[in-house]
């Protein structure tokens, strides 16, 4: 039984209420390998390890069937805003 991108998306949405979430299927369609970018207020005041633990914990059920999960970004809304602004200024320059 595979896990779908939609399933990962909806579990993370309901557990971490992200303001930005991107789930990328990196398996080439077999549904067992994902990359995730997530921005949530729940990351506030937490180190990267604790943030990743939150994501892994939210997906505990799915992790049994996921072969690889890459957490590309786990940011607070404030960090996300700053990152986007610096990217925008780079493009503008």
């Amino acid at each position, binding site marked *: 039984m595979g896990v779908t991108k939609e399933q990962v998306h909806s579990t993370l949405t309901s557990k971490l209420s992200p303001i930005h979430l991107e789930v990328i299927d990196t398996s080439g369609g077999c549904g067992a390998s994902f990359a995730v970018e997530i921005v949530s207020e729940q990351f506030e005041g937490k180190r990267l*390890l604790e943030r*990743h*633990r939150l994501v*892994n914990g939210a997906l505990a059920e799915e992790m049994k069937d996921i072969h*690889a*999960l890459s957490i*590309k970004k786990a940011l607070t809304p404030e960090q996300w805003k700053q990152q986007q602004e610096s990217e925008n200024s780079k493009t503008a320059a």
Partner: protein
Amino acid sequence: SFYCHSSLTPELKTTLDKVVSSQKVVLFMKGTKDFPQCGFSNTVVQILRSLNVPFETINILENEMLRQGLKEYSSWPTFPQLYIEGEFFGGCDITVEAYKSGELQELVEKAMCS
């Protein structure tokens, strides 16, 4: 069911306590440092190599009990798993992030001097 049964026996926990503190830097990975069998494990090996730090690798593909026990030991579901000075540091993404920011080098240098 299978998941109700803990893989982390007290004996295995004692062994792991010893293994993670046997060296300053210990990496549990898929394959060995000379023959990594997964891209994520390979990434962490290359990072440690580039930092020029002595490290021990343990191949979790050779021992299913160790593999399952470690997931509980570190409360981390995937491999590789990097330990620095007996403490769980993170998986591949965290290691890459800390390498880019310079935090990993700092931590490893501190560990080597302690």
